[in-house]
């Protein structure tokens, strides 16, 4: 790994006074901090190695030994699609809403209300996924079902709404909404903290120039919080991709690849599939399930990589211009 970096801060290298006691304390502290970073790498390497080693028997097995008698690629393909699809629906709903809610709490609501709301949102981040699952089955699905029936009757020419319509409403759209509600508190809480940290001088300067509230938000709050918002979205996406119990409970699984949002035949997700199949699996089927976990791992890796790249490019672009 790299050599201990010279102490730097955003503004450039800084040399604190060169007292020996300072240097010892600094060295210990820096060592601790770096040690923690290395520890995380080791931990992740352990998890990755565990996944890879446990996956190998499934990846090398012939199709007939695997569950459903399909090759591994055919087995995992629809699952990967379902995972991405459900998470995309969730993020599409949750991202704008959570930014809106965070703005409401940080810049629009009265101060007293804001504290209470922030507290309430934090609290909701703690609702266990099992409860989201129960809520999805008993409350949300019946609420959404008539809407889906309407869409199926009137808009069935759009592939998303081609029937047949589920009689219970436990579709991938419902699962996506449940996921959106699940990741909303986390995304909102992080966005809120970020927005609240906007340098006050920037905002006051904009106000002094006669900017409207939206212009303040657009010109000082959002640019300041962009990387944080993307971070929040990534955390939310990570949870949506990996969510297990809620999806397993809510989604009616049919297998196959389909963009139909309202039918009872929905693609399953990787994490839910592991939860559903693991208890009764044995032998190479267990390895196959762990291998799908590896695929999920890789998907998350790629998504995060892409997000990082986007943030970095934006930054370069802004600084370069």
């Amino acid at each position: 790994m790299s050599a201990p970096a010279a102490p730097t801060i955003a503004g450039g290298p800084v040399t604190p006074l060169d007292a020996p006691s300072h240097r010892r304390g600094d060295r210990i502290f820096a060592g601790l901090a770096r040690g923690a970073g290395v520890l995380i790498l080791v931990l992740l390497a352990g998890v990755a190695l565990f996944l890879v080693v446990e996956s190998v028997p499934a990846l090398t097995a012939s199709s007939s030994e695997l569950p459903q008698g399909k090759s591994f690629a055919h087995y995992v393909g629809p699952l990967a699609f379902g995972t991405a699809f459900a998470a995309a629906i969730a993020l599409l709903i949750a991202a704008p809403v959570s930014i809106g809610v965070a703005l409401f709490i940080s810049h629009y609501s009265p101060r007293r209300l804001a504290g209470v709301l922030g507290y309430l949102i934090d609290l909701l981040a703690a609702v266990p996924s099992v409860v989201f699952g129960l809520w999805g089955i008993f409350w949300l699905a019946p609420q959404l079902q008539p809407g889906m029936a309407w869409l199926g009757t009137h808009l069935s020419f759009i592939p998303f709404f081609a029937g047949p319509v589920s009689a219970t409403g436990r579709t991938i759209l419902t699962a996506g909404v449940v996921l959106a509600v699940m990741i909303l508190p986390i995304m909102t809480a992080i966005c809120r903290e970020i927005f609240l940290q906007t340098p006050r001088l920037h905002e006051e300067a904009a106000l002094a120039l006669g900017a409207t509230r939206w212009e303040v938000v657009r010109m000082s709050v959002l640019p300041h919080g962009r990387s944080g918002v993307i971070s929040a979205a990534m955390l939310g996406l990570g949870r949506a991709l990996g969510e297990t119990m809620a999806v397993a409970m809510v989604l009616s699984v049919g297998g196959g690849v389909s963009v139909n949002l309202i039918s009872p035949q929905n693609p399953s997700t990787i994490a839910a599939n592991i939860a559903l199949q693991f208890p009764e699996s044995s032998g190479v089927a267990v390895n196959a399930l762990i291998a799908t976990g590896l695929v999920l791992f890789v998907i998350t890796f790629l998504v995060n990589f892409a997000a990082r790249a986007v943030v970095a490019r934006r930054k370069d672009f802004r600084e370069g211009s």
Partner: protein
Amino acid sequence: MKVSRSSRIAAALAVGAIVLSACGGGSNSSGQQTGNGSGGKLSGNLAGAGSSAQQAAMQAWAAGFQADNPDVTISYDPVGSGGGREQFLSGGVPFAGSDAYLTTDELTKSKSVCAGGTGAIDIPVYVSPIAVAFNLSGVKSLQLSPATIAKIFNDKITKWDDPAIKAENAGVKLPSTAISTVHRSDDSGTTQNFVDYLSKAAGSDWPYPVDDTWAAKGGEGAEGTSGVVAAIKGGEGTIGYADASQVGGLGTAKVKVGSSWVGISASAAAKAAELSKPASGRPSGDLAIDVDRTSSDPSAYPLVLISYQVVCQTYKDKNVAALVKAFETYVASAAGQQAAAKAAGSAPITSAVAAKDLTSIKTIKAAG
């Protein structure tokens, strides 16, 4: 659960990453027992794992057994039958609950966990009828033949007023509502038994293989018995299969046995278990049963799930052997079966089956 050696090494690499507090010795974890094994008063922990179908009954058994033996703690992880068998075969737990009996392969493997070259045996202790339950406004009871059930779940019959259903239910007013079938989306012993019933009793109307994964296309999937029941209740014109004790409030179908219609009852379910033949090619003491789905005896309800306790005939540890033996004796006893019936709604095994169980349980011993 089996985790290969290489992955253990992989995980070992991460050891440094984990701050493990000092936990001296530590070999005293679950599955291992403490306390005296010298006859008389029993004490220690006994842990099992496996079928979630048995969990409610297991709670009753644990409670009843602990009441008689206050120094004993029984715990049971409902990880699923497959998980339970894997843990049992890797020596993780001294007994497992399983909805399916051990395969020949697993029997061979069990010889390395059980002592003295003897293998494991399956003891049928839990019989539960599976209900074909539906939610159709105005209709509380239906009569369905195996062929009709198979066609409904195979999407060949799609409306409630289909002639096939009408023919079997003279006098019932059937609406033209579309049928939505609900099946288990997780692998389960319930699915296995339901499909086994369809494929044996409905013949060519059920073209799919018998497996614990639902193979037919179409219909809704739901997780677990509770999920299936919730889904049936949540829709109109829905039909599914679930453990009979859990379908409260829903209509249930009488199924055709021979030429008569048989409804769900504990005695009819227990009778089906008694009438069924022992599986062939099993070691002595093993009581695996192949349920007779095509019996024409009108006192038997053939759509049942039979769940087993998987135990060793010989244990290395004296105390474990004593605990398992005492616990299983209680489980198979009339008191244990009544407790399970009360807590889980299962069907108490008939005295004929219980007698066989107890004979097998008597052979459990410690090595040497």
